[in-house]
């Protein structure tokens, strides 16, 4: 039987084959070819799209280039969501590769945050980790880390160094055995058809009567619609890293093994494809 560590590896090395095409409205000197890339599910768009930018800049005049942003079937893609979440939320159940349109003009200020450099992504990533640790350990672990340890986490993600990242991240995943888990589970539930960005509330991994909470328990409390009642047609898929874990999966285990590098468990609730 495979080891739980293999899950960490599988999660980390998840890749989405992506086809980047330039928005036809962009002014180019010659026709831009599509660019194909394997995007790490756990990373962020600005971190992994240097090559994309370089590729399209070759056919463009510098004066026509503003801040780069991405769009999928009309939806601007939020760079501060992990790539896997964007894919699961908007493009799961579609044919691969994932077709992303690249824009260099008309930045949708109302939908997207500006991202002038990767240091902004780093700041966002680190603040997520800190937020997660405040939920898990009252920030004790992350505060005990040194600056270089924080850097190691970020560098690990940025350079796709699994060992480097996990050498540090495992400290964030520890908890006293007698507690049975983290203080609260850092999670976010995303829906496609909602104005709310995501659901995030306090939720403990263990019930007051000492039973381990499951994914089902979480959804029942946070998003009961996502669950299929008896005799009902299944309406929603609950996706984490592109897979549908069983609802009886213990939440603590999920948080330890299926969290993104930002230490949040990102759960996407998407409608079941109609076909």
């Amino acid at each position, binding site marked *: 039987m495979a080891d739980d560590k293999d899950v960490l590896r599988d999660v980390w*090395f998840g890749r989405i*084959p992506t086809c980047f095409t330039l928005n036809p409205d962009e002014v180019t000197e010659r026709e831009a070819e599509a660019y194909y890339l394997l*995007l790490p599910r756990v990373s962020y768009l600005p971190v992994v799209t240097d090559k994309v930018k370089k590729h399209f800049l070759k056919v463009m005049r510098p004066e026509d280039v503003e801040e780069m942003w991405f769009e999928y079937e009309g939806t601007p893609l939020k760079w501060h969501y992990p790539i896997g979440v964007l894919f699961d939320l908007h493009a799961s159940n579609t044919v691969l590769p994932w077709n992303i349109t690249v824009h260099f003009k008309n930045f949708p200020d109302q939908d997207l945050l500006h991202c002038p450099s990767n240091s902004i992504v780093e700041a966002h990533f680190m603040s997520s980790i800190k937020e997660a640790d405040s939920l898990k350990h009252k920030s004790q672990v992350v505060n005990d880390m040194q600056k270089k340890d924080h850097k190691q986490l970020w560098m690990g993600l940025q350079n796709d160094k699994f060992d480097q990242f996990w050498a540090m991240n495992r400290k964030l995943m520890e908890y006293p055995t007698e507690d049975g888990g983290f203080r609260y589970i850092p999670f976010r539930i995303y829906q496609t058809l909602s104005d709310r960005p995501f659901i995030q509330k306090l939720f403990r991994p263990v019930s007051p009567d000492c039973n381990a909470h499951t994914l089902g328990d979480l959804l029942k409390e946070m998003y009961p619609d996502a669950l299929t009642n008896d005799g009902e047609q299944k309406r929603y898929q609950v996706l984490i890293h592109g897979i549908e874990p069983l609802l009886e999966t*213990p939440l603590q285990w999920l948080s330890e093994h299926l969290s993104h590098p930002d230490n949040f468990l990102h759960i996407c609730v998407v409608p079941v494809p109609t076909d």
Partner: protein
Amino acid sequence: MPVSLLWAVDVYGRVYSLSTVGQQWEHCRNTHLEFKRVTAAQQCCWGIGCDNSIYLNVHASDLPVRYQEDTYENQRWNPVGGFSERLLPSDRWQWSDITGLQHQPMASFQLPSSSWEWEGDWFVDENLDGEPTEKEGWTYAMDFPATYTKDKKWNSCVRRRRWLRYRRYKDMDTWAKIPSQQTALPDPFSDISCGGWEISEEPRGRLSLWAVSLQGKVWFREGISHHNPEGSSWVEVPPPGEVVQISCGPGDLVWAVLWEGHLIVREGISRDCPRGTSWAEVESPSPQVGAIHVAVGVNVVWAVTKDNKVWFRRGVNSHNPCGSGWINMVGEMIMINVGLNDQVWAISCEDRLVYFRQGVTSSELSGKTWKAISIPRDGERSHSSASANSQHSAGCFFSSEVRAPSVVSDAELDLEHPPGDVAISNVTFPGPDSFVDAPTNSSSSQPCVKPNIPKVTSDSFISELVSDRKPAKTSGGVESASPAVLEEVVPDEGEADVLSSNSDVTITGSGGPPDPQWSNVDLEEAQIQNGQTGAVADSVDSCSLSSVATYSLAMEDQYGVDEHPLWAWVSGGGCSVDSHSQLNWFSCSLNTSMLQSVQSMSLSMTPAQTAAWRKQIFEQLSERSKREMDNFRHYEQAIEQSVWVKKGAMQWWRDWKPHKWMDVHFALEQFSGAEGHKDGILFIYYNYYEEKKYLHAFINEVTILVPVLNDSKHTFAIYTPERTKQRWPIRVAAGTELEMYDWLALLSVSCCDSRGIYGSPSKQAIWSITCKGDIFVSEPSSALEAMPYPTPCDQMFWRQVGGHLRLVECNSLGIVWGIGFDHTAWVHTGGYGGGFFQGLASSTDNIYTQTDVKSVYIYENQRWNPVTGYTNRGLPTDRYMWSDASGLRECTKTGTKPPSPQWTWVSDWAVDYSVSGGTDREGWQYAADFPASYHGFKTIKDFVRRRRWARRCKLTTTGPWQEIPPIPLSDVTILPCAAQSSVDTVPVWAISNKGDVLCRLGVTLLTPAGTSWLHVGTDQPFKSISVGAASQVWGVARDGSAFYRGSVSGLNPAGDCWYHIPSPAKQKLKQVSVGRTSVYTVDENGNLWYRQGVTPSYPQGSSWEHISNNVRKVSVGPLDQLWIIADKVQGSHSLSCGTVCHRLGVQPMEPKGQSWDYGIGGGWDHITVRGNSMEPPRICLPSMTEPSPRAAHTPPPTAP
């Protein structure tokens, strides 16, 4: 930590034990008596029964308590009849002891008590100092007393031979009465306390047992040891007043409480005088209120005063046994007991629960808080009405079956007694041998005992109970006397026992009735049996009831489920816990289920591993990878793999002379190598005369990383094949221990990555151990034993496995056993990592805490001078007056540190008497001058003397090892098997640290630790053992001779007899290793011997052939591969001691091989190749055999 027991007595005199891994009190079922008090050691428990006799319960062990009796038969030659038993009048007795002074006919040997039995009849010893004698066992000499030889010479006028007979202590795990002394003691005992086992290791299992009689006298039991668990006699130790209670610690502390409330302390207790010499008096903690109870440990004294206040004595140790002052502690207790590791238990006066003192450490001996042990007793979990019904029906039987004419059931009688007296049951036994007990503890203050107690008032019945018969016999006698009036078959004694033990199982599973709160011998049994349900129960309890004839029908109402036990006495002397122990005694059942669910979440190899949700995740993830990645492998990766560099500042032991530590920059550059393996280069940047230079090593060439932690520097050594040849590794030192382990873990992962080695060691792995106890493992390739060009030994890659061992043995089924420095046996869990390997370099689910203890020795040296005798003033040329064994290094008591920061002191310095050569009473060894060979007595020619001091230190680490309690081992061997052999149970043999030969039963792939030990009798202690592939077992005895065990087979795993094989001339063997057919031994002078002439029909072989010298250890593999640890191997840069060496040229027709190939070292102490059953590729016949893939990789070696 081995499982051990806490003992307690409840107010009804029932004895319970609580296991350190248990969660309920287990009733001591074979008690047919109530007890007043118990006192426990690890190997046994003593108690005062309510018949005022002393009882001993020796815990069953796989090692029998066995005593060798011997006597000598002496004969003199006369010209007429040759040798005959007619001796000269001036001669010794015809049957005598070894000295000839003591008359010892065989008939004079009697069993010491009914607890012993003879193992067999007398037989002749045919072994003289390792040499076999003639068949009759005679040894010859010119005259008595003289040196005896095994050969008869022309001038041999006398001869003698030794007869041996073994007796065995048989009453294990039952309460056996200590026979009362001929000179009957004037009055019965009221208190008892054992301890003193830390005073001396000799004789083995020595205990001090102190007792107090009702008249306040103090008695000491002489002669208790492993071979004489009962001791020999009571000796009175007159106290200065009337003593009411006494406490003896594991060390040399003995305190007692006087009737007036003062305390007395025994002084002068030592190895030579365990009884001590005098008493000193200590005031009661509180001037108004006298002390009533005292409890001592190694360095602590606790007391209770009459107002139930608890006191802790400051400043107590063996130099100052009286301590310096009292501190009042929180809590009100009726008694206190100090157990092992100075841990403290007490019984609260409020609720009569047993409390454990939490947070007692060597630095904080008074602990932090009291915590109640609130767990149920067995049979107390639930209260079913069914059992009550069965009792009623039993009662019906009873009422019709009253048979004993003199028994009167009188339930009212006891109401006259004040409630406080019920704790001691003999109050109600006005039998001829009993007397009214005046409890000396505060039982009169005991608050809430209900007076409803079943009573037995028959004198004749009582006299039966308290008669001198053994308890077991008592019930047997009564039962057999009772007519079998019931329709059910009345089981006999043996069956009844079986049934009652069955009932234990049922009770824990299904819950039994509430415990009866008071009972005597047979009632006890009846009630146990009531606990079971069904027909069996009915038949048993009815029969025993009929034999007892007294029974209270109302008893099941008296204590409901909620009623917690009321304790009267607790003893932790056998309970090995410390402040770190994980105990389940305080957690309720809710928490335990919680705990389990947590474990199932965080550990991977648990039943939850197979849970559907987990399977689903694994399946979906691999499905996802397939879906999202398989068709798109040609896409570019978004993030290019780059070089990852880790840098640090280190010190480096520079290569050129003068060698010294110099500051360097240390860097590891990692990158993705060929075939996806990560690779790297290690750089050491240094300055050489202002010039910047660097040294580098390719990670894929590093063969081993060895931590060399010492007391001053955190260093480790990096070897490559080249550096191994030079015997000169790259040695670097990190600033802190943490940094060193960081680097080691990183480099180690990096080395494994570059070689594609992951996960657990394979079954074929070669294991080795350094002198520091670090464990290394190497994956052999089939080319390792290839002919004619094997892989050079210095190219073997070794990786470290967590844990700390002195010895490791394995076989090709993947069964691996280890033995620690403290002789603890460990079995490999199949995991990897642990220790400083964390996270991804370590498995998670099978790593456990491992501890080890060893002694550090220093020597005190003195020189004699004519004026003052021996002084610590030496000659200017002399060694340090405090030194190491060599005398070259100064080692003072205060200046000597533990071997490395991993070790911490756990004892104080103490004189070590167990030095080879013997010592005098103060531990001194004498010699003419330093350095010399020392002897244990002073002669006229001796001008110097020395003595050894020892101090124990302890290491705690983690590793893939699980303890196999309880017998400490000194050697172990596992049957080496061929690669494809399928063996159900694997023979494992071992030697206990006392030299007993043991055979492990039940060792299989699924249960590598086996189940139990089978003791194999020997006439002398053994020190080494090895089992070959054909189950041939060889051992080496303490006298240096070898033994071959005959008829060992799967059906007869222990074989039937030993064949004595003399050692090579004038050599004492110390270790043996047996492969497929080869037998090799190493002697004490470092010679390696091969056994010639071993054939299937003559497995003992014919003679020893010398192979090599400078050998420390040998390991022969399942294919007769020969590997050794060699002393003194010369490298190009340096000499190394303790080097792994491989014998080249070993072939079926040439088992002795040709030459040595040198591998990793020095500093190695142990190697085992007994798991490597990989057949080497046969290069000479390439067409007939398929070369293995690894062999194909090996470049063809160039001919020399």
